[in-house]
């Protein structure tokens, strides 16, 4: 009996093909294709008009010109003031979200008990759920006057107030991803260090942070990418004039604010002004894409290392 069963291998395949099952799989794959179509759509939507734009404007002038005046006569298409504005706001945001996001992550991962962590973490994430236009309002009506009160020479609009508020908005992003990667560090490493007489400060900064560094850097990169792509805070609170400056007290226009400002009007389709939206959008997309891919790769590295 036993020998006969061994001779005839088990047939696990279905007797007949179930077409219904294949249809289901096909429909599900179609759903998945929507995301692919979205990416393709974004690339086509951005780059086709952008390439046309670069037929009229040399790409070197675009990337190195220091004067952005697409709607004036004579027009000038140097994107550097917009990039500088974006970087200035991003730098202000990083001043807040990098040290304090990391601090919050270390507290949650190394100092807080499980109960504290489980209450504080969702509360912190409320910050990430506040709509960005609300942050813009807050920067304009609370932070800017506050900065003036402490004696900083900021006007109604400034890169600094938009950036600081953006930094607080990004704090939970940094804290959450960094905390995840710190939680993935095996407790053996901590216990070993404690056994050798380390203090909690030493364990946190010399053991846990170095071991979780790829996830921590990923959280920084992702926060920078989101700061570069953030629109509403800068549209409301950073100003609306391109400004080639590195002074955070001044008003600046970012790439996103330019796109939103120009795209909401009735710019005629096909005009060179209309195409600037796409040229700037393509620049923005490439910058954030590179950072996102770096972050995705870094996150994957810490997951692989300890799981």
């Amino acid at each position, binding site marked *: 009996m036993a020998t006969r069963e061994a001779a005839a291998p088990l047939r696990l395949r279905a007797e007949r093909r179930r077409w219904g099952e294949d249809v289901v799989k096909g429909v599900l794959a179609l*759903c998945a294709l929507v995301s692919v179509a979205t*990416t393709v759509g974004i690339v086509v*939507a951005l780059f086709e008009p952008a390439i046309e734009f670069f037929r009229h404007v040399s790409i070197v002038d675009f990337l190195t010109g220091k004067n952005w005046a697409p709607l004036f006569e004579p027009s000038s298409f140097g994107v550097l003031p917009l990039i500088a504005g974006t970087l200035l706001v991003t730098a202000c945001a990083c001043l807040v979200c990098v040290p304090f996001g990391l601090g919050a992550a270390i507290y949650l991962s190394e100092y807080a008990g499980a109960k504290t962590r489980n209450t504080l973490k969702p*509360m912190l994430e409320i910050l990430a759920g506040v709509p960005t236009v609300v942050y813009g309002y807050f920067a304009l009506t609370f932070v800017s006057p506050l900065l003036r009160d402490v004696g900083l020479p900021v006007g109604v609009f400034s890169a600094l107030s938009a950036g600081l508020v953006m930094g607080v908005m990004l704090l939970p992003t940094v804290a959450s991803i960094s905390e995840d990667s710190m939680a993935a560090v095996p407790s053996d490493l901590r216990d070993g260090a404690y056994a050798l007489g380390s203090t909690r400060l030493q364990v946190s900064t010399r053991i846990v942070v170095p071991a979780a560094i790829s996830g921590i850097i990923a959280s920084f990169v992702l926060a920078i990418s989101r700061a570069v792509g953030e629109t509403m805070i800068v549209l409301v609170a950073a100003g609306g004039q391109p400004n080639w400056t590195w002074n955070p007290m001044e008003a600046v226009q970012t790439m996103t604010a330019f796109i939103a400002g120009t795209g909401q009007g009735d710019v005629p389709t096909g005009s060179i002004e209309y195409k600037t939206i*796409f040229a700037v959008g393509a620049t923005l997309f490439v910058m954030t894409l590179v950072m996102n*891919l770096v972050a995705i790769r870094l996150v994957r590295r810490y997951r692989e290392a300890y799981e």
Partner: protein
Amino acid sequence: MSADEHRLRSGRPRGRWSGRVFYAFLLLSLAIGFATLGALLVQVVAEGYKWVDAVLFLEPPSANPKIAGAEPAILATIYLGVLLLAFTIPLGLGTAIYLEEYADRNRWYNRLLEVNIQNLAAVPSIVYGILGLAFLVRGLGLGRVLLAGAMILTLLVLPTVIIAAREAIRGVPDSIRQGAYALGATKWQVVWRQVLPAATPGIATGSILALSRGLGETAPLLLVGALTYVAFNPTPLGEFTALPVQIFQWVARPQDEFRVLAAAGIIVLLGILLTLNAFAIWLRNRYQRRW
């Protein structure tokens, strides 16, 4: 953690002052987040609470701030929410089921799909606005209509929903699937009758959080044309404005009365979003199962 271990760890800090300074810095890090949230709420409520009244809910916007309301904007936000859920849940769930239950992870195209979704989740929202402007509004000739806004918001939150639904599906233990297979169920029967019911709380929580994110978005709607002056109640194929866009419009005006109106609008918007978030958290805590 045993009692002994606990005593060892919480003994007097030997780090002298450096440990304390560091600890103070960590507390400051958290305090900055909570202080900002508190200041924001106080500022908004103190400015705007007087104007959260019947006028705000029942009147169209106006050049005179005293009689200006946000009825069309609030209704449009509700319509957007309904359409958003109707589009996002089938698409997001379908993709998540495909990736978790059907896709062979060793195939390059499935891995590419995964990275693609992760990346889409981090694409700036304004870029989705450009996509909407180029394809839906001008390319398809849909015009600046509510439906185009809902479609763009759908694409925007889809990656979030997919990622949440995948996690919920992955949380269903394999023993459930094996048990159903052993009783002769087909793959789809296993997914539809066992995996999905078990994953529903996680999926619902993720979808509601995504809904709340979508309803708070402003930038993509600006490009799809929600900034037009709309004094009438919205229809899916008509011009529209949404609550966050209306708030932006009011904030952008220099007069102080409009700032107050914006604060009142923000109270309503935050009220809607915080209710959704609280509901999502309640759902998770109430129905979440530990296997």
